[in-house]
């Protein structure tokens, strides 16, 4: 017994610092979720603030904007999930058809440049180039005789702008993932299909795509967990009160209720709701990924 403890003692010790940090900074906030059931007063602290049961949840439920915010979140998130699957697959398939080496490599190199930029920098750039009065995009639109579009200030355009700019930032990364799957396809499969008379399109449909299926299914299922993540970093830096009707999402609402209006209890209640629903979806997504493509995180 003593011998065994002695042998594994270093292993326990190695885990200790990480464990301590995660207990404080990940599990600490989880216990802090109790605030959701309180009328939290900072001077009284979490243990002495008055308990109010489900009042905070009821308050949010009765707020006029709640349904709209939930709709915005899910609509934006679903568009992002679907398009950031379809478009990168398309890009990867098209890149795979490129026979000139340096074109292929050059395109591959350039398309994930935006991926490594923060949304702060990209938003700074987008705000400039999409400006209705001075932005280069609207200058182009006007030069062909159309009216300037207020991409970031018009509620009718805001979601479009968000989804497309997200696609612009993230597609490169996902394309490389899919391209990696394509390059690992056994070349003899192509040779066999050519002998059977398959043209490029048929090779793509019957060899390349089926070979990519596991990774496509994996990416698709794992992205399910993001169904309530419409992208705080992006929207926070691009939205404004004019576009709350189509662009305000759960995370930005929590930020405003909590950090600006300091209604901690209410903001935590919304956060708890989001956390629980997300947890459910992440659980489902890992389960599906495990069942469908035998994916295990470790």
């Amino acid at each position, binding site marked *: 017994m003593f011998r065994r403890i002695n042998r594994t003692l*270093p*292993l326990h010790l*190695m*885990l200790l*610092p*990480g*464990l301590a*940090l*995660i207990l*404080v*900074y*990940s*599990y600490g*906030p*989880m216990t*802090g*979720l109790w*605030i959701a059931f309180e009328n939290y007063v900072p001077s009284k602290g979490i243990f002495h603030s008055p308990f109010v049961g489900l009042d905070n949840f009821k308050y949010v439920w009765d707020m006029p904007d709640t349904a709209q915010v939930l709709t915005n979140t899910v609509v934006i998130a679903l568009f992002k999930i679907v398009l950031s699957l379809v478009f990168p697959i398309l*890009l990867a398939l*098209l*890149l795979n058809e*490129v026979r000139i080496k340096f*074109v292929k490599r050059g*395109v591959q*190199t*350039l398309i*994930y440049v*935006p991926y*490594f*930029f*923060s*949304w*702060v*920098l*990209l938003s*700074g*750039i*987008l*705000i*400039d*180039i999409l400006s209705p009065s001075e932005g280069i995009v609207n200058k182009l639109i006007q030069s062909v005789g159309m009216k300037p579009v207020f991409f970031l200030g018009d509620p009718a355009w805001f979601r479009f702008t968000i989804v497309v700019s997200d696609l*612009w930032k993230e597609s490169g990364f996902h394309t*490389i993932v899919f391209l*990696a799957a394509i390059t690992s396809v056994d070349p003899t499969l192509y040779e066999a299909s*050519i002998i059977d008379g398959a043209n*490029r399109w048929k090779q793509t449909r019957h060899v390349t795509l089926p070979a990519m299926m596991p990774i496509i299914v994996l990416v698709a299922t794992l992205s399910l967990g993001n169904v309530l993540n419409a992208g705080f970093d992006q929207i926070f*830096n691009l939205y404004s009160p004019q576009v709350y009707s189509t662009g305000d999402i759960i*995370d930005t609402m*929590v*930020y405003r209720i*909590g*950090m600006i209006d300091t209604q*901690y209890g209410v*903001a*935590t209640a919304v*956060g708890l709701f989001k*956390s629980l629903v997300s*947890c459910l979806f992440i659980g489902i997504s890992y389960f599906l990924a495990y069942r469908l493509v035998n994916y*295990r995180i*470790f």
Partner: protein
Amino acid sequence: MPGDKSIGRYTFNAFNYAFLLGFALLCIFPVINTWAMSLSNKSAAAAGVVGFWPVDFTFDSYRFVFIRRQFFEAFFISVERVALGAAVNLLLTVLIAYPLSKGTSEFKSRTLYAWIFVTTILLNGGLIPWYMTIKETGLLDSIWALILPGAVPVFNCILLLNFFRGLPKALEEAAFIDGANHWTTMWRIFVPLSKPALATIALFTIVGHWNSWFDGLILMNSPNHYPLQSYLQTVVVNPTSAFSTIDPAQVKFLSEISDRTVKAAQIFMASVPMLLLYPFLQKYFMAGIVLGSVKE
């Protein structure tokens, strides 16, 4: 290849090349445009004639930013954050991945520990309790507020853990027979053999720390303590003018520069470190993807 010479093939190729090159251009154009804008004169910028190349070349936007110190103070806070943060993250990643890479026969508590870590991927406390916890632990306004709460990158631990498991078991056994203990095995065998994996994780950690802005924004009470991206969030994204506070030394630049060119200069300078890292990112990018898919 058969079919490669048909008319359909030619048309497809033409469209394909045009589309891909167009998209690649679209990805890089905003960066080039920002660079060109930062070196252009204010009237050229306002006229919207700046595309790929500076118009009426001037360095004044950069001179203006250089005089202002705030930008560089924030820049160095970010450098400090990246150095400290990446070091802490990497150390903890190794320390967590090594014990968890052991089998349950060797390390019985492994499963329990693994679940404690993985649960944090599934559940989190949300914004307010997170903020309260950091406040309660007295980190507000200190650089450690940007490092300790995110010091355990669970996903990276899992990546490295899977990599460790892929290493030949015989090496470890040989080391133990030679009298090595867990610590020496970890540092002398596992870490040196995992250099490519560690480099990948290090690069992504650096990018992550460099790009973080929200934590700085709400955890630092005084703007003097903002890291670069938080500082830029307040000047580039929010509609505050760069000229709201101006000292006499800067007045002489006003004929040449505008809000727009100054913002562009700051955005471009903030992206320079990423652009310098880009060749390395590229090199390890594929490695990272392969690493992510290494499973037993």
